């Protein structure tokens, strides 16, 4: 698939939108007409051609603009990228995994040439060319995680594994759905999952942790998560709540379709071989409701899912203020017809 990169913004005038092809590959997360919380982990293996699951790190038409937005966030707030000193080996592990994957999966866009520890990296869309020594951070303009993190879509955190726990000891997080790296860095698995309602009771996290502690090299896994965002804003961090929190009050029956976006995160988990750490990738996709209802099945289903969403989750996902307006708007697109199973468009 030849990619044409869009020139668009995720702030101020919000010119972001999806092309028809990008709409059809949007990872719509609801496989039935009702919402169920589950950890729904599956192997992160090669998915259908052209889908967001085709490659470990999906690059799409928003790549160049997203990387520009990330650079702006880091410029304003360098604390969005942090790594504790013992994470250096894991940083190199991440750089290697991402560069190798991108060069293999998108040979027209990226090239990696390795001669022992002398590496040469070419990133054509961002016009970057870099020769460096693998393992020697002084040969890169940033530390390895930040260097490659500025060139790959999605947020990343790296978990160190100690005492049968996972500790979030590094991360580059500029487009998170309302959680803070500055607050979570150094926390363990249960601490950073603290606020999710309904999940603790089910023992879900204990099982998920055990699963992750045994995560195998070369066997990454993934899951989908979702929320909703007003305006196609990538940076909805707690630090910037003053900038985006008030957006939630601006939704009216007239502008629902343009303002309200479904935001889906494809979360990938990779065992890093040298450091034994775990790389967590959070790759976000945004779709306005105007664009979402161009797929009739999605319009019907989102309407039904929102209607049956438990109260606790509505609060947790920050939907309270505009849920009713949104349901009302979506009802025009739900004629009551049955929907097919699975998330894909018909």
């Amino acid at each position, binding site marked *: 698939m030849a990619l044409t990169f869009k020139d668009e913004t995720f702030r101020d005038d919000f010119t972001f939108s999806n092309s028809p092809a990008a709409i059809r590959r949007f990872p719509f997360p609801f496989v039935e007409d009702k919402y169920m919380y589950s950890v729904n982990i599956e192997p992160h293996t090669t998915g259908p051609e052209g889908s967001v699951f085709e490659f470990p790190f999906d690059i799409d038409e928003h790549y160049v603009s997203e990387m520009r937005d990330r650079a702006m966030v880091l410029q304003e707030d360098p604390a969005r990228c942090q790594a504790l000193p013992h994470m250096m080996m894991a940083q190199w592990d991440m750089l290697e995994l991402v560069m190798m994957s991108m060069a293999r999966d998108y040979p027209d866009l990226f090239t990696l040439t390795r001669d022992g520890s002398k590496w040469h990296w070419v990133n054509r869309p961002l016009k970057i060319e870099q020769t460096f020594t693998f393992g020697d951070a002084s040969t890169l303009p940033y530390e390895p995680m930040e260097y490659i993190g500025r060139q790959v879509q999605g947020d990343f955190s790296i978990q160190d594994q100690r005492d049968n726990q996972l500790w979030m000891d590094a991360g580059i997080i500029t487009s998170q759905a309302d959680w803070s790296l500055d607050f979570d860095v150094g926390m363990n698995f249960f601490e950073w999952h603290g606020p999710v309602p309904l999940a603790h009771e089910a023992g879900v996290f204990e099982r998920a942790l055990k699963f992750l502690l045994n995560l195998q090299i*070369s066997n990454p896994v993934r899951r989908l998560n979702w929320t909703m965002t007003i305006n196609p804003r990538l940076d909805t961090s707690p630090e910037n709540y003053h900038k985006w929190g008030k957006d939630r009050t601006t939704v009216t029956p007239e502008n629902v379709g343009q303002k309200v976006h479904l935001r889906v995160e494809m979360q990938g988990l990779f065992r890093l071989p*040298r450091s*034994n750490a775990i790389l967590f990738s959070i790759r976000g996709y945004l779709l306005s409701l105007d664009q979402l209802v161009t797929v009739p099945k999605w319009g019907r289903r989102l309407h039904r899912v929102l209607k049956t969403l438990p109260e606790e989750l509505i609060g947790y996902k920050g939907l309270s203020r505009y849920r009713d307006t949104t349901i009302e708007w979506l009802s025009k697109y739900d004629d009551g017809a049955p929907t097919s199973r699975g998330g894909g468009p018909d």
Partner: protein
Amino acid sequence: MSGSLLRRVRVAEVEQVANRIKRFRLVDIDNAPLSEFSGGSHISVVMHSGDRLMRNPYSLMGSPTDTSSYQISVLNCGNDSRGGSKFMHDAVSVGSELEISEPLNLFPPCKLARKHILVAGGIGITPFMSMMNELDALHCDFELHYGVRSLEEGAYCKYLQSRYGSRVNVYLQDQGQMIPLESVLGSQRLGTHMYVCGPKPMIDWALQTAELLGWPAENVHSEQFSAPPPGKPFVVKLAKSGREIEVRGHQSILEALEEHGVDAPFLCRGGACGQCETGVVSCDGFIEHNDHFLTEAERVSGKKIMICMSRIPSGSITLDL
């Protein structure tokens, strides 16, 4: 998920490194690069001996960054074993083909430690070979205390001393030498971590000594080369499928299930990773828990069993499978 994807390898080199220990060098069958790994990792080696299938975990010894080959060392447990190690010694030679799993690390060095004390007994040296490689490359402070029966029985003594110098201390049992664990552990500064691998009595002794000296539990790590202990035959009933399967005296439950084509989850097959945890619906008598994973409370409850290691003395057990 049972186990992980397997990779075919060829034996490129075999060396007798001590009386009952052989070192094997394994390369990918197509010479493709192997995965890098972290110090302390092991792989499972799958052996086909006649119509028997054996899978034993063996620690990786080489340099974690060498992707051209993996090295393992195997102690010949002789005729009193069910045969995996004997098979490696008698039937595997240069050119033999085997299958291995991807590396798994249940014994990693703690990256926050200010110093690492490594305590090895006999074949328990193997995970420390890769660990020292890694610690040395990272300029971490470590010392090894390695007890062997004699120079002939102990592998890699000379090699380790020449490579790591005074950081390596070897103790020869036949010369009456003992690891002076109390003084070693008694004189360490805060933030030091201790790792022990060797025969069970040695591990117990090291863990107790550390505890008596007031070491925090999270600074003490051990790996035991457990294999499922034999016992008497019994019957496993599977609640979901209604099947009944006999477990022979020299088999683990997991092995019996596999023999009958039941796909049960596992990774380490040594009672450490937790992957094979299985619910118990009912059971005649007590479970002999031989794993290192379940908590005391879980054992007492009798509701869970690690099927790679644990068994019952006789009768039948019904599993939630």
